[in-house]
């Protein structure tokens, strides 16, 4: 008898009753920690708030509650700790914009020195704080192989300060510092950093990318990461309704389209080599992903910019080839 594949067992079926309880997500569990509790001031539909909750609840569960978090300056830090309130129900430290990775390294050392090596450290920040201003500290943590899981919530820009371009902003995207004007509207092509690949180049034990569309996948990756000692990096795509100009109820859908179009490849890597990918059964044309986003509206207005869309399609196709993203079964 052929095994029946439940393709829909992903975020569309969180806590799916067809699933064995042991395979359900942490979010399905009423006993979850709620590491990031309600009451924070995130925008409606914030992908980062969603991801942070998923990630931290899983990390807390995976470590038996023995977890400390270090947060870079950014949206997450700002909306979660409006003094005198805090949404965090776990030990949490925010220092500066650029230094979450270094601060985390220091926390790890202190935990060892004070006889608590069982307590684990998770550092987190947005794309700006990670790939731009925080890059030196991040690379330093990687090269020392410090026992830190660094999670980057990537919404492709400095959203907290008003949607400015970062090194993670995709080509052609409109931001306040890469306006959709001139002959080359939006963010230029040929610039930017692929932080996950740079992390892989450090040969650290574990690198993975994920999105908020595939909850089981995201949680599994956090669990895997927490089972490993040494420097680990998780890069999560988190749509930002405000910065992307998308509907607040569309966040998960947009994340899924990003993955299915192959513009955001989802994979795992061990010591610099890709070890698994989240396969794409049906590659979605990039246009389907771009059209719902106001930050790409200039590609569709009037006669549109089919040439730019074609270049973006090339990037997607290159990702398919590079990572082997297409599923063997169709």
């Amino acid at each position: 008898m052929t095994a029946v594949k439940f393709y829909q067992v992903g975020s569309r079926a969180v806590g799916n009753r067809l699933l064995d309880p042991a395979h359900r997500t942490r979010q399905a569990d009423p006993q979850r920690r709620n590491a990031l509790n309600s009451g924070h001031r995130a925008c409606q539909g914030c992908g980062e708030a969603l991801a942070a909750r998923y990630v931290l609840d899983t990390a807390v569960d995976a470590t038996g509650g023995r977890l400390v978090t270090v947060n870079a300056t950014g949206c997450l830090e700002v909306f979660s700790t409006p003094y005198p309130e805090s949404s965090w129900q776990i030990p949490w430290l925010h220092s500066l914009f650029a230094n979450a990775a270094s601060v985390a390294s220091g926390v790890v050392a202190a935990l060892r020195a004070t006889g608590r090596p069982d307590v684990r450290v998770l550092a987190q920040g947005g794309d700006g704080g990670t790939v731009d201003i925080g890059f030196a500290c991040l690379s330093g943590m990687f090269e020392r192989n410090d026992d830190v899981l660094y999670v980057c919530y990537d919404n492709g820009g400095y959203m907290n300060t008003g949607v400015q371009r970062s090194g993670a902003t995709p080509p052609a995207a409109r931001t306040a510092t890469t306006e959709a004007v001139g002959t080359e509207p939006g963010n230029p092509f040929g610039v930017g950093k692929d932080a996950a690949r740079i992390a892989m180049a450090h040969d650290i034990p574990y690198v993975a990318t994920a999105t908020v569309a595939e909850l089981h996948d995201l949680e599994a990756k956090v669990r895997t990461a927490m089972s490993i000692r040494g420097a680990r990096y998780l890069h999560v795509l988190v749509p930002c309704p405000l910065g992307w100009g998308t509907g607040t109820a569309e966040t998960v859908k947009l994340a899924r389209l990003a993955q299915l179009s192959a513009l955001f490849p989802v994979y795992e890597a061990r010591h610099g080599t890709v070890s698994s990918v989240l396969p794409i059964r049906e590659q979605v044309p990039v246009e389907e992903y771009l059209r719902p986003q106001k930050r790409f509206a200039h590609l569709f207005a009037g006669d549109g910019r089919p040439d730019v869309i074609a270049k973006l399609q090339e990037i997607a196709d290159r990702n398919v080839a590079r990572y082997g993203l297409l599923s063997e079964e169709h």
Partner: protein
Amino acid sequence: MREQLEGSRAVAETIGRCRVQVVPAYPITPQTHIVEAVGAMAKDGTLPGCEFITVESEFAAMSAAIGAAAAGARTYTATASQGLLYMAEALFNASGLGMPIVMTVANRAIGAPINIWNDHSDAMSQRDCGWIQLYAESNQAAADLHVVAFRLAEALNVPAMVCMDGFLLTHAFEPIEVPDAALVDRFLPHRRPQQQLDPDDPVTIGAMVGPEAFAEVRYLAHSQLRRAEEVHAGLAAEWTSLTGRDVAALAPYRLEGADTVVVALGSVTGTLQDVLDERADGTGLLNLRLYRPFPNAAVREALAGARRVIVVERAFAPGAGGVVSADVQCALAGTDVEVSTVVAGLGGRPVTTAALHGMLDAAAAGYLPRFDFLDLDRPLVERELAHLRGGAS
């Protein structure tokens, strides 16, 4: 036990005896011998259980120190000059978060132009970062002050920097009694953090504070820093009773009945003592070991009897004037005391007994300018200024 050893070495050994638990380190001249020695001690077991992290920049060093201190460890690092500036953002962060980190600053000039030699412009540039600032006049004082600094910082949850002149002290071999391990243990108990990152008792550290509460938070930090003067006085007395050595905030020399008093910080005070002994003319010296918080009342009282004060400083405020002398003048507000500022020893220029005699002769004869640079090549600067004024068009 008294030994002849390098200042850096003495400091490193003292740090070891303070049982530091985490040391993030980044090298910069002239602090390198300190971190190298601490690193070796951590590696060979002389300093057991110490986590020594070779970080990628000074900014990373102070950041890692913040994380370590927040997680409850006794934390130490060292830097100088450009390195101190590179971690400037983190300095304010450390004091704002109440992290009792102790740091050696091997005082060195700040570029441009790049200069690796001694002056005080590095620490002075950070005088408002919320850290306690202590200045050592000798390597013995440097060793002693580090022990006191840990206790002071941890008592108040305010970070402390111990300043020692780069090269002049760090690289000088002098007779030093490295505080004995048992004595340090008696004086400096294990750190007992008031709060720390702990899964059993979670806290949120580093929240965003808006206009409705920021001023109060900062006022409280200021009050805490002010308390350091009183707490330091108590600790200094305790240290003296244990060792016979003085680490008090103010160290007067020939001050009683002095008509002219020189105020200075760091190793130049030793040279000044020789000069004043040679003159024996009623000139006194006030060595300031505690610069932040600034001991206003104590300074005012110490200088009350003087007619004239000359602040000899190893830094200055470009476009303005003196740095320490501004604080001294503030402390003397309302009195008749004349204050002159003499900027000496910038970028490692030696401060000689001859030049100091010249300065005091000028003061006695009434022609020491209010703001002066010791040993400045005046003909050279005058030529250059004339050239800039006239020739450039």
